[in-house]
């Protein structure tokens, strides 16, 4: 017989968890004690629980494993909510273990009590409150199973302190049977055949893919399929790296800040093959405007509720993206002839490409786009890039050409400022020795800046690319364009000296103010300071805006281009 606390640790060992991101407190002291007595599961002590969850989330995003966080009851849990909601919106498999007050105190407004199951319910795939130590192992097993199967997502397990002290036999279930939870994997063959038929008939096809391709590790299959079809491919913000961005069939990211060619191709396509994407508002713009063109839609997704949610779908295929693509490839290998008119479509696309919508104005100041371009060059296009939320995030997405999946790590769905640095931590722990850049802004980085301390403790050599415009740039951009330049609260005064700040945490700090210094600084950071965290404070042109832009409520083709300004 072993204690509940030991059971928790044994379960993590059984799940081959190598890192847990967490922060201790009263209700998890037994668990921390059990953690202390073993070596397999390593613990990363963050400086704020939000960062623990973000780091676990990125650990998962950049590997194929389930991220794990461990926090104490009450404030420990409430601090995780942003992180959980962020993971939930992007369907990231994660298990969050939370301490809870002892069973007998629940409901008594005990010290550090909160209704964890209630607070997290709307932003988890599922959650559990363990009420009997005999259920503990099976519940944790279920949590990992639910988090990582079907449409993945975060699962919270709330564990009262007394449960971690009680003892029982440890028996970790080999598998999970749940009558209420059996996600579909294989796509319907009849539907798949219909889809292939529709692809043959397409004159203006587009392959539109999202985070589902990354999550189901289907990038390779997608690339094979797209090459066979010779159709244009566009990725959502979450789908970047699902198809090599340097390939000629890639038309760029689509949506609010998508390329001219991607947005036009999406809008005017007669057949859309949507794969693991969900036609969200940042992608298709105004749905009425999008609906004006007649087209047919094939939609492959593991989650039936994503299909026909915002756009009516003609051929729904529910299943694991990778498995479905496999089936499609098999059918296509049996013979596939694309419509000859697709050649004209390519001509049209090349014409749109000719607009060169990512060209940007030059300036005596450092342009943020230029920094990302140089970052791409210096890292050989092979870095993991985490980002925050704002203009810098869009610049990173637009100008760093991701050829591989799981390299672009950002909060697409919730748009959470502050994720960049903790994301970098999770990525580095999952991929030791890799180049990890965090492209951030002076606003976002300050939302989890305390993690510089964690990075020092565990020697995590993240390269922070702070695109410092002294503004909440994305907010300022909207105010400039839609609020007659009334810059309400978008100016960040009293910024710290980031160089000194980095140094005070024991890191390397650099301030880069001239365009010609950009590349040397980056090179230095990635070579000389390879093993150090380097905080690069790039003082950029404060007026730089992100283009193309589809304003909220506008149609996908109603883009504002840099040349219009």
């Amino acid at each position, binding site marked *: 017989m072993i204690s509940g606390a030991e059971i928790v640790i044994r379960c993590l060992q059984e799940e081959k968890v190598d890192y847990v991101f967490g922060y201790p407190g009263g209700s998890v002291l037994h668990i921390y004690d059990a953690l202390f007595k073993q070596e397999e599961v390593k613990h990363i002590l963050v400086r704020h629980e939000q960062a623990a969850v973000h780091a676990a989330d990125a650990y998962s995003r950049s590997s194929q494993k389930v991220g794990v966080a461990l926090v104490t009851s009450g404030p420990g849990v409430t601090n995780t909510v942003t992180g959980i909601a962020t993971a939930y919106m992007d369907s990231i498999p994660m298990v969050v273990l939370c301490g809870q007050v002892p069973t007998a105190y629940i409901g008594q407004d005990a010290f550090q009590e909160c209704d964890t199951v209630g607070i997290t*319910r709307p932003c988890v795939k*599922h959650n559990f*409150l363990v009420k009997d130590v005999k259920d503990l192992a099976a519940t944790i097993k279920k949590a990992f199973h639910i988090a990582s199967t079907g449409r993945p997502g975060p699962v919270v397990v709330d564990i009262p302190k007394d449960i971690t002290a009680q003892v029982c036999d440890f028996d970790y279930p080999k598998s999970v049977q*749940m*009558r*209420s*939870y059996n996600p579909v994997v294989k796509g319907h063959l009849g539907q798949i055949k219909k889809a292939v038929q529709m692809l043959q008939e397409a004159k203006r096809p587009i392959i539109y893919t999202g985070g589902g391709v990354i999550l189901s590790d289907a990038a390779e299959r997608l690339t094979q399929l797209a090459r066979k079809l010779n159709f244009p491919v566009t990725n959502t913000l979450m789908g970047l790296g699902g198809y090599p961005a340097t390939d000629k069939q890639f038309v760029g990211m689509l949506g609010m800040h998508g390329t001219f060619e991607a947005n036009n191709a999406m809008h005017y396509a007669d057949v859309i093959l949507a794969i693991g994407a969900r036609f969200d508002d940042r992608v298709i713009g105004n749905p009425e405007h999008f609906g004006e063109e007649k087209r047919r839609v094939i939609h492959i997704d593991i*989650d*039936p*509720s994503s299909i026909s949610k915002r756009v009516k779908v003609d051929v729904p295929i529910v299943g694991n993206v990778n498995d479905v693509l496999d089936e499609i490839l098999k059918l296509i290998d049996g013979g596939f002839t694309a419509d000859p008119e697709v050649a004209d479509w390519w001509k049209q696309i090349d014409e749109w490409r000719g607009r060169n919508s990512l060209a940007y104005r030059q300036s005596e100041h450092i342009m943020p786009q230029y920094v990302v371009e140089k970052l791409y060059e210096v890292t050989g296009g092979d870095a993991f890039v985490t980002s925050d939320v704002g203009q810098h995030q869009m610049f990173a997405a637009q100008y760093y050409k991701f050829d591989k999946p799981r390299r672009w790590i950002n909060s697409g769905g919730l748009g959470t400022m502050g994720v960049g640095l903790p994301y970098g931590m999770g990525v580095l722990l999952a991929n030791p020795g890799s180049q990890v850049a965090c492209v951030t802004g002076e606003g976002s980085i300050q939302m989890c800046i305390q993690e510089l301390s964690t990075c020092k403790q565990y020697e995590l050599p993240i390269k922070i690319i702070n695109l410092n415009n002294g503004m909440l740039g994305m907010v300022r951009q909207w105010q400039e364009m839609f609020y007659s330049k009334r810059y309400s609260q978008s100016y960040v005064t009293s910024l710290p000296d980031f160089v000194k700040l980095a140094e005070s945490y024991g890191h390397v700090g650099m301030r880069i103010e001239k365009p010609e210094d950009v590349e040397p600084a980056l090179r230095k950071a990635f070579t000389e300071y390879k093993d150090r965290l380097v905080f690069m404070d790039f003082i950029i042109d404060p007026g730089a805006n992100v283009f193309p832009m589809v304003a909220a409520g506008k149609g996908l083709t109603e883009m504002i281009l840099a040349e219009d300004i």
Partner: protein
Amino acid sequence: MRHIISILIENEAGALSRVAGLFSARGYNIESLTVAPTEDPSLSRMTILTWGSDEVLEQITKQLNKLVDVVKVVDLSEAAHVERELMLIKVRATGKDREEMKRMADIFRGRIIDVTESTYVIELTGASSKLDSFIAALDAGLILETVRTGVCGIGRGDRILKV
């Protein structure tokens, strides 16, 4: 369109809040909701009366199915079914109204299940519209209190919702 959704759900603590939370978070209507364990005490049966277009209903069913505790979901109103609701209504029953109330209860096949010098409690079962008509048929000033269970329903014949 009016729809009756029947749900079989694990009889776990918090199951009801998952369903109710889903409806409020996604802005779906709940006209009425009833829930109780089935003959298998590990399962609860929930009946939700809701309104929405076909697209909304499709989403409601898909989203309910996505809840990990939900075993089965069916839109009863898609095919032949029967539905009932129970109402307890307390009315003033004095003077000439006392006789009138008794007569009305009889007409609607209600039963008087509690009697005091000045009040009756009438029990009435039927389709919701029948309960509505009963209320409409009474002098509003005489109604002291109404309690309705919300609709519950079941498929006809071989239409069975079971694991």
